[in-house]
């Protein structure tokens, strides 16, 4: 594992660029992106389609390598780590919520959450206790033994949030987490993420939805692969 770079930041990207393809077919998706995320923030990463949001979040989460630049995640320079070590960093520190819930259809809500904890080496009994508590925290205490097909879209997304939060991650990364939900469900989901953010934890959410700005501490706007605006709610962002 690499040496710690900065203890005060959960994510730090320096001059990150990403190009897909080679030669005449090369397409630059990100260029010269620098970004820092301290603990205690819910940050929205916004921008139009094709602006590079998903690529940036993939690189920051350590599931895609940049073409150049350096990324530090929870104290580790992941751009110089091998795949196994990056996996370990993700396993210990990150929780993910996606556009679709990506739950295993054969497993109950409880098992979908517990199995991920077991994968993170949590003993089975403890994993089930933690999973139960996480599902109760998202209001699904009465749906522990329901399979995904027996839950609504909003409930499934709440199971996905419980799965992401059950392991007490330092950083929650979300990608269009409300895009498939109605207004009420979207509010519930965002409030859950908002409540998770403490002085020691953060959330980084990619979204198109301006209605979610009220939950944010900070908004970063990306256009044509570059950060064009980075402001906190104390400032005027619009």
């Amino acid at each position, binding site marked *: 594992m690499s040496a710690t770079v900065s203890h005060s930041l959960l994510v730090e990207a320096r001059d990150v660029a990403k190009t897909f393809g080679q030669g005449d077919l090369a397409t630059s998706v990100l260029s010269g992106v620098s970004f820092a995320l301290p603990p205690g923030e819910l940050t929205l990463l916004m921008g139009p389609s094709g602006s590079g949001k998903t690529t940036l979040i993939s690189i920051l989460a350590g599931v895609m390598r940049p073409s150049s630049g350096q990324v530090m995640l929870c104290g580790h320079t992941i751009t110089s780590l091998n795949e196994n070590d990056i996996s370990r960093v993700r396993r210990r520190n990150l929780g993910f919520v996606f556009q*679709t819930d990506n739950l295993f259809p054969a497993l109950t809500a409880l098992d979908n959450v517990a199995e991920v904890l077991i994968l993170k080496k949590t003993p089975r009994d403890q994993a089930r206790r933690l999973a139960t508590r996480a599902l109760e925290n998202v209001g699904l205490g009465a749906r522990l033994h329901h399979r995904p097909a027996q839950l609504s879209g909003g409930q499934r997304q709440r199971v996905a949030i419980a799965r992401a939060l059950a392991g007490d991650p330092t950083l929650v990364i979300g990608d269009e987490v409300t895009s498939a939900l109605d207004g009420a469900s979207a509010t519930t989901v965002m409030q859950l993420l908002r409540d998770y953010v403490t002085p020691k934890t953060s959330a980084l959410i990619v979204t198109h939805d301006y209605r979610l700005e009220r939950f944010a501490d900070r908004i970063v706007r990306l256009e044509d692969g570059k950060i064009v605006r980075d402001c906190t709610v104390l400032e005027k962002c619009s």
Partner: protein
Amino acid sequence: MISIALRSLFHERGKFIAALAGVAFATSLVLAQTGLFVGFRQMATAVISRVGGDVWVMSKGTKLLDFSDPLSAGIRSTVAAHNCVENARGLIFGWTSIRTPSGGSENCQVIGFEPNNRLGEMPWSLASGLPSDLHAPMRVAIDAGELRRFELPDSPVGRGIQIGGRDAYIAALTQGMRSFTVVPYVFAEAATAQRILGWGNDQMSYWALDLKNRACATDVISSIDRHPDLQAVTNDQFRKMTADYWVVGSGAGATLAFSALLGLVVGTFIVGQTLYSTTENHIRELATLKAIGASNMELVRFVAWQAGFLAVIGGAIGLLLAMTMRSGLAMIGLTMSLSASVLTVGTASVAFMCAVAGYVSMRKVLNVEASKVFV
């Protein structure tokens, strides 16, 4: 991961049942074909195995048990001359026909034996009658499975029957001694067989030699091979010669091997298709696990557990099917062996089938990109 893998497998019930059926079908086919192959070999050499002896002596140029020239009288003293030979037992193997009660004719192979001098018994177990019942002149034993063919009742002991144009009497019934050539055996003591076949006293087809010490077999064989009209081989060699002639030379072995291979290929495709489609259907969930921090090995276990489960349960069902088939085949006179070697081949085949079927899915899993979950 075992819980996720197996519950995902059970969740798609139709595909799960199809995959289990595929493994079971392929297993039973491989076991049946391999079992028949071994069974045919055993059937073709059953007489040699039952008679025993360390060295077999026969006329020069003999390639298999079923076809040989009679040896002249007096050979007994030649083959028993070596001081390592403890006992020489003559065996007659000749072809003739039986007149059925309705006036028809059926070919048969007459096997005449000298009772094992040490044990005083015949080399076949009897389903009905006693070995001593064959001591009287012109007494024969036939196999219980051939009664219908000879148009005989279920309890034929004591009935007269015309064999080779001579009158004989059924004194006993054997069980499960049926010929690979489908021509029925008729068993008799040597003197009776010689009379039926019209051979002279002491004329035999084979001499089975019991040695005082098996280590001297090579020496005994080379001493007999010096005789211009004789050849000698060990019991194992003679069984191999006979089995190879019928099972390999006739093409039966190749046919059975091809069928077994076909079963293996079909089973591999069915299982492979099921595992692949299960993996494909869960690719986003697997990518999610990878993003969360699951290693490639943990994802490979997803497929490995499914393939392993299908192999064990499908293989067990296939074995039960094969055992049922064996009982059915026995009723029509076919021997299907499920010996340790056949089961080993079956187990190895199932393991191979599921490993190959799982390989493509494992590659798919290894190529899962965690970044796909963000798309």
